[in-house]
């Protein structure tokens, strides 16, 4: 797969700080592939320096270091993870400081140039109001990333707290919670969004975040519940109880760290879908509303003009696709690293 490799080079060059370029990095078996030689030592020195044992050759078997360090060990060598992590890092940076790469004003419109194509200094062209598409695409990252991360954090915290408690205590609390989760599962997302969000007048991200959390937590809570039920059966949980650990301590110190992996995986993948959900809701006019800058809003206003000014649609849509793809790829890589059955 040559293409992703190329992408990584660009990213590595652009963002990663240059490591001490010591030669001889060619030992790493994971590095085989169609790679530019000049880049090889730079990328390889970091893992290599930390682990002198690897120099002895042979694929470095992740021998006994616990789930998390094993997972990290795997991830560092997974090109999918590196690519998606770099894309996400880039997106987060421009979400926080869009002016780093876009000096213009996303609200400044020049109606004389409405729907014009690319021009010097305006590589993506102009939209219906004569605003710069490049600037708006860059500024649109903030809304998507904010919604994605906040909604995922909210859904993950709420879902794992409720699901974890249900799994640990069982009984009527479990039954009640599972039924409530079923009720929320039963709400069609788009219909629910149209109903709940159409009454909201605020154009900010928070109603959207709240709505996604409301509909997203049952998925996480099911995963968390199942995971806690599995871990609860383990001997070390019984041993902790036999040695006098309280319920809270058992749950937080002994069960949670062992049960959290599936939740992380599902939450990472869900993050991508939440971002596209925000864009969908904004497209339908019930999510974010102008003057908030959002890819969904821009896609929506560009959709009617697709035949005479496709660039208005393609750039925000492309940015959205890459963002969603990056998070889903990250989730996949994390799942592969955390699932011991795949080792």
């Amino acid at each position, binding site marked *: 797969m040559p293409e992703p490799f190329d992408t990584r080079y660009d990213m590595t060059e652009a963002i990663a700080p240059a490591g001490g370029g010591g030669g001889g990095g060619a030992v790493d078996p994971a590095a085989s592939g169609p790679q530019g030689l000049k880049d090889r030592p730079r990328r390889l020195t970091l893992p290599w320096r930390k682990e002198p044992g690897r120099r002895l050759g042979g694929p470095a078997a992740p021998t006994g270091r*616990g789930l998390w360090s094993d997972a990290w060990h795997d991830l560092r060598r997974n090109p999918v993870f590196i690519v998606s992590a770099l894309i996400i890092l880039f997106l987060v940076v421009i979400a926080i400081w869009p002016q780093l790469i876009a000096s213009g004003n996303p609200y400044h419109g020049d109606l004389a140039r409405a729907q014009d194509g690319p021009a010097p200094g305006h590589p993506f062209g102009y939209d219906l109001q004569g605003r710069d598409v490049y600037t708006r695409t860059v500024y649109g990252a903030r809304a998507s990333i904010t919604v994605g991360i906040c909604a995922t954090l909210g859904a993950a915290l709420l879902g794992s707290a409720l699901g974890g408690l249900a799994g640990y205590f069982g009984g009527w609390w479990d039954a009640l919670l599972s039924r409530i989760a079923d009720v929320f599962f039963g709400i069609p997302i788009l219909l629910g969004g149209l109903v709940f969000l159409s009454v909201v007048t605020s154009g900010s991200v928070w109603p959207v975040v709240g709505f996604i959390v409301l509909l997203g937590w049952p998925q996480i809570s099911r995963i968390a519940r199942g995971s806690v039920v599995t871990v609860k059966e383990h001997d070390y949980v019984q041993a902790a109880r036999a040695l006098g650990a309280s319920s809270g301590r058992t749950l937080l110190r002994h069960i949670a760290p062992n049960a959290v992996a599936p939740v992380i995986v599902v939450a990472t993948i869900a993050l991508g879908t939440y971002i596209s959900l925000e864009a969908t809701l904004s497209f339908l006019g019930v999510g974010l509303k102008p003057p908030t800058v959002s890819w969904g809003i821009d896609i929506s206003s560009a959709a009617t003009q697709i035949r005479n000014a496709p660039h208005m649609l393609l750039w925000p849509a492309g940015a959205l696709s890459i963002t969603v793809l990056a998070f889903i790829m990250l989730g996949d890589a994390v799942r592969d690293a955390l699932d011991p059955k795949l080792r």
Partner: protein
Amino acid sequence: MTRLLEVRDLRVQFRTRDGIAEAVGGVSYGVDAGRTLAVLGESGSGKSVTAQAVMGILDSPPGRITGGEVLFRGRDLLTMRAEQRRRIRGAAMAMIFQDALSALNPVITVGAQLAEMYEVHRGMSRGDAQRRAVELMDRVRIPAAGQRAGDYPHQFSGGMRQRIMIAMAMALEPDLIIADEPTTALDVTVQAQVMDLLAELRREYAMGLVLITHDLGVVADVADTIAVMYAGRIVETAPVRDLYRRPAHPYTRGLLDSVPRVDHGGGQARRGHADHGRHGGHESHGVHGAHRGGKLYAIRGAPPSPLTMPSGCPFHPRCPRAQEVCRVERPPLYEVTTDAGTDAVANTGADTESGIGSGIGSDGRTSACHFWKEELHA
């Protein structure tokens, strides 16, 4: 004198899809400080469930304690509030599990797990607790304890892990330790070391030890008293030497006979079955073949399911000595007297319990067999 631990007529049921299974049907045993009681029985005899009920870590549901008392220093644990019981666990009574790999948290270093005992129960600072943890690892003879405290459980060998498990149980110097098959997951050479360590620590701290095992070899050296369990009940209780020399229950005899011996194979214990082989009429009673190089004795059949307990004595379908009465009438716990063997016949219930499971000194032998006298003098 109140005993350290006294279990009286403990009953535990499990609700399953197929009905209610009585996993423990009235078990009574006791242990004094500084003594070792071995609870012997095959898989499914209820020995572990009894221990879990005593520790208060029985999974409920499906498990449920339906009767009996668990007296720890004279106080009934079963009527205690949950929080009060939790404080006793770990500090005054602790448990050692069979498989230390699965009984230690895989994501926490062993040093931190040991230190946690001191932090939680003694409120020590993290640094002090860490120091104590290393001392403790040293105490159970883990080489280079200071360096290994930062390692995770899976980085230790089986024997070392079990030492850490022991160290965790010993951390707060409890009065009572329940060890649930502590050596089953270990290989034979390490078994001996771990048992020695356990016995040594028990002596040093004058703890009471309840040793749950199915391994007769393990028991012989360390136990003072043995309680043999079968199908959720105690079938025989005796001081260790008496039990090995003269078992008073056919099941105990069967267990003893099924251990291969390198000394004079035929031994005294085997003669009993020579007489009764014809009752069973089963080839596994080829008693004379139990000599070295011959065929090893095996108790025929399989233990009964707790859902379909046989009538009368639960052992009767497998018993070489079974008579009509065994099929009909459940034998009470008879008090066994070794001298003349004439008196006895106490009933189950309150009047026998005082004598059950007492250590050496009071004779305190019991047997749940109608024909214990014949068995004893066989």
